[in-house]
């Protein structure tokens, strides 16, 4: 969050009217004249004006005194909008964005033309990727087109949106106004690096203005991070620290960057250094807490994977995760015709807040998983409400990033790697495929999908609340569209184009023979054909759903039976909370119509429904009606959704697999049931023993039957099995 803001504080300090009265101090600092600037700031602390004193204390990093002086200043007759805007920037720098935003708003309430307040709001919004940053910058640009720092900020946001041309233009405008605009120079250097060109000219210029301007390198590192260049970002954070050893924000960013690369020891040192020097923002403190909590994790390695799991759930989860990773690696090695050098590390967090620490300062949903090079961090299924999360789909998604980022050496636009990852989920299972949520249908109906060349902006600075979700859908459906029209190999060819540093425009031309405009036209036509019936009937569907929900509440089952199938036909992809499948199934259950209930629940399952309770109900009905293999398949789906806190699920599936003579799989399930701490531990150990024995593993069978009898020495079936084992010829 705060990582990108330190330089902005300096930058704004020089230009604001308040600071204009104290220009020398901040300018000196900006030009690397540290000793002179300190003397200047010390003098300011003795000024008769509280606002000036606040600037002095701020420059000396005496934060509490600066804060106090600003408080006094805002009470004085001179303490207008300008003072509040400066105070807001101080608070932002000291990690208090909420109060900072309030002060910026108060400043604007007093003076609606206060440029610094707009810039302050832009900075806070950008740090939170909330989509309003560009709006505020544009207001500032309109009010002060001749202030270099406004163009510098516009350049930064443009590059974060991967609009390199606009970023270069804005940086050049800033440099035309002030030839030593350091942040514009940094943006220019970052553009060169992201485009795989030499940044030397710009770096030399940066050094000539101020050789100790670490923030310039930190900005470059930040832009590299946003373009998936995590290794390079770490290198530039190191340069930032070398230039300015006391730049604690860069130490913190370096620590977090190292954590992302799995280099914990050095990360811990850097973060502790920040902490002990008073730099204790949320990212630093939470990252340190997370590092401390790693003592409660275990690491499980094999040739191609490293799993980092909380001790309390590693026994349960590691067999599933490891098996799935091996499956994914085999599939992607073949599909992408490449191999990842070295193992892929997957970290699984049962506490969502721990996972959130790993995604801080990253754009996009960041809600389920995140990939940094060959390190994947993701939520554990136990971190989420049952049905909210499919860890299998998340793993296929994130692993796709690992391959695409490796294949392109990180030179890939966000929309393409996210789109391909979403597409891969659907390739793994039709039930995990890209689904049009109500937000997506509304976006389609209201023609809000973005042109392909601007799609990245929907991820970084969304213009409406659901735009990130819509952008994921659009990116995924573009890859589906390419596969449908040109075939799956074209997607791999697109990967190769990006690896050759082609732009999206070039990649489309080269592989699909279309201009971006032609592509957009054909894609929108395709999506329209697929979704216009659902989009155009969306309101009708919603009315029917309301009717059905009300009928369910008053148990008017006939209304549901009449209206339900038609509602599903209008929008079969709707499987989230309050879906029609659920109401209809409940209705058939009440009416004891087992066949219809199975039919409804199976339709829900195939539409991608993920409510474990509904799927387990289906499995039970399937089992009772004799479709035991269908029941086993249904429960296997639940394993990908919520395999935790449910010993009964594993035991039931184990029983089904045992009956089908899938003894190894049954062993896995009974083992999982034990790892889930079942109430009936002895009974579960016995089942495990029986599965081992049936699979020909007598020694393990004896271990398990002894475990059962140790708990319950008089457990008759276990006694019988023990006697059998000891009477058998091999004993």
């Amino acid at each position, binding site marked *: 969050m705060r990582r990108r803001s330190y330089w902005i504080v300096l930058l704004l300090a020089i230009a604001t009217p308040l600071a204009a009265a104290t220009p020398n101090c901040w300018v000196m600092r900006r030009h690397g004249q540290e000793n002179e600037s300190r003397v200047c700031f010390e003098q300011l602390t003795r000024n008769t004006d509280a606002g000036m004193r606040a600037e002095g204390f701020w420059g000396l990093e005496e934060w509490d005194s600066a804060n106090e002086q600003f408080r006094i200043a805002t009470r004085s007759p001179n303490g207008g909008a300008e003072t509040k805007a400066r105070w807001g920037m101080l608070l932002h720098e000291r990690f208090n964005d909420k109060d900072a935003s309030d002060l910026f708003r108060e400043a604007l309430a007093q003076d609606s033309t206060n440029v610094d307040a707009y810039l302050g709001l832009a900075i806070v919004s950008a740090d939170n990727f909330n989509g309003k940053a560009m709006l505020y910058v544009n207001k500032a640009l309109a009010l002060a087109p001749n202030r270099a720092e406004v163009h510098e900020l516009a350049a930064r946001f443009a590059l974060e949106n991967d609009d390199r041309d606009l970023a270069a233009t804005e940086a050049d405008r800033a440099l035309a106004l002030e030839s030593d605009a350091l942040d514009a120079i940094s943006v220019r250097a970052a553009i060169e690096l992201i485009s795989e060109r030499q940044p030397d000219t710009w770096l030399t210029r940066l050094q000539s203005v101020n050789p100790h301007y670490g923030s310039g390198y930190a900005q470059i590192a930040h832009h590299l991070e946003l373009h998936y260049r995590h290794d390079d970002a770490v290198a530039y954070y190191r340069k930032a620290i070398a230039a300015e050893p006391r730049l604690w924000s860069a130490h913190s960013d370096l620590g977090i960057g190292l954590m992302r690369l799995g280099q914990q020891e050095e990360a811990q040192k850097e973060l502790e250094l920040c902490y002990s020097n008073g730099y204790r923002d949320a990212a630093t403190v939470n990252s340190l807490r997370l590092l401390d909590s790693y003592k409660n994790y275990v690491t499980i390695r094999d040739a191609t994977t490293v799993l980092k799991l909380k001790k309390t759930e590693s026994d349960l989860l590691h067999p599933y995760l490891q098996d799935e990773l091996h499956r994914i690696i085999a599939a992607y090695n073949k599909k992408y015709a490449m191999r990842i050098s070295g193992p892929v590390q997957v970290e699984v967090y049962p506490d969502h807040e721990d996972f959130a620490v790993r995604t801080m300062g990253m754009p996009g949903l960041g809600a389920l998983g995140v990939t940094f090079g060959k390190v994947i961090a993701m939520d554990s299924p136990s971190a989420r409400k049952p049905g909210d999360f499919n860890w299998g789909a998340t793993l296929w998604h994130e692993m796709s990033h690992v391959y695409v980022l490796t294949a392109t050496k990180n030179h890939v636009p966000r929309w393409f790697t996210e789109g391909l990852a979403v597409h891969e989920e659907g390739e793994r299972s039709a039930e995990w495929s890209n689904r049009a949520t109500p937000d997506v249908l509304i976006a389609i109906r209201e023609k809000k999908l973005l042109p392909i060349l601007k799609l990245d902006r929907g991820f970084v600075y969304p213009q409406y609340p659901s735009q990130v979700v819509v952008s994921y859908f659009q990116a995924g459906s573009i890859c589906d569209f390419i596969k449908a029209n040109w075939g799956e190999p074209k997607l791999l060819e697109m990967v190769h184009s990006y690896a050759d540093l082609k732009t999206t425009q070039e990649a489309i031309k080269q592989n699909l023979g279309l201009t971006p405009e032609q592509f957009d036209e054909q894609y929108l036509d395709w999506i329209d054909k697929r979704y216009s019936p659902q989009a155009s009937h969306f309101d009708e569907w919603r009315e029917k759903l309301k009717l059905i929900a009300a009928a369910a509440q008053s148990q008017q089952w006939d209304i549901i039976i009449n209206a339900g199938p038609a509602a599903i036909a209008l929008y079969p992809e709707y499987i989230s909370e309050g879906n029609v499948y659920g109401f209809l199934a409940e209705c058939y259950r009440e009416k004891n119509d087992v066949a219809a209930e199975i039919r409804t629940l199976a339709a829900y399952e195939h539409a991608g429904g993920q409510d474990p309770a509904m799927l387990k109900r289906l499995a039970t009905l399937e089992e009772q009606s004799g479709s035991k293999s269908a029941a086993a398949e249904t429960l296997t789906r639940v394993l990908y959704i919520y395999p935790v*806190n449910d010993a009964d699920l594993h035991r039931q599936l184990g029983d089904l697999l045992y009956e089908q003579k899938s003894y190894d799989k049954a062993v896995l399930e009974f083992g999982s049931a034990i790892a889930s701490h079942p109430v009936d531990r002895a*009974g579960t150990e016995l089942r495990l023993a029986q599965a081992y024995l049936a699979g020909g593993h007598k020694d393990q069978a004896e271990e398990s039957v*002894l475990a059962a009898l140790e708990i319950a020495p008089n457990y008759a079936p276990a006694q*019988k099995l023990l006697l059998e084992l000891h009477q058998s010829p091999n004993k």
Partner: protein
Amino acid sequence: MTRVRRSKRWRLLHRVCAILCLSAIQSRAATYYVIVAGLGGEADYEQRFTAAAKDLDKIFRTSEPTGQIYTLVQQQATSSRLKNTLSTIARSARPQDAFVLVLIGHGSFDGSVYKFNLLGPDVDAEEIAEMCNRIASQRQLIVDTSSASGGAIPALRYPGRAIVTATKSGTEKNATVFARYWVEALQDPSADTDKSDSISALEAFTYATKKTATFYESQKRLATEHAVFTDVIGGDPVREAGTGQGYLMSSFTLVRFGDLQQIANNPAKRELLQKKEDLEQKIDTLKYQKAAMDPADYKRQLTAMLLDLAQVQQELDK
């Protein structure tokens, strides 16, 4: 003393209690059950409480055909009806008989007084205690599954009485789900964790608390109930057996589905039964020593004893 050691010692005492329990069976003691479904307030709760009470009624009648079972639901669930029922039992129950009271519903606690909500006037913990204290049964179990039920514990404590409450204190005031899992425990053979063909109060408690915890975890809701029990006069209520708690609970059989009694009454098998009990005690002793033993030696000895026990059981089953 380590936690493991306490646990092992408890198992030894548990064995002694089990033998005492067998004696109680032989004396043909009766068990009196009173099940009350309190005022629901809303149709949903009303239905849920009544269904749970009726399920328990059915479970106890099936498990113990000679049991004296009184179930008060809906209009019958009044303070006066409850008092009459308990007075009736107080007139007939003998010291060797067991007594079980299960309260299902809402409770309240004002900081000093716990009340169980009934149709008409509520009944407070002191009144419940006073009525139960008049019952001569020396083995009593009160299961209060209501909200705020932890607030009733101080008043309900009495020698020979185990108390189970759905909440750890009177301040846990949200409606509870514990009753649902308590009833489920008595129907689910997997609650019989020691495979003794019976479900004790302790096994039912363990099952219900685990299932309750899983319910809250899977709903991603903060748990608003933490069931506890106590079966001694002093000491805080606990969530698991140990530190002197749990002897009465583990020997208080609620549901039986085996033929223990028939075997105990067969003189021809008494020698085998004695051998079985000896082996069981040896196994318990060995388990008590496990932490200090070489794992291979422990396994060898345990296997030998378990094999002997299995063979004895095979003889008994003939």
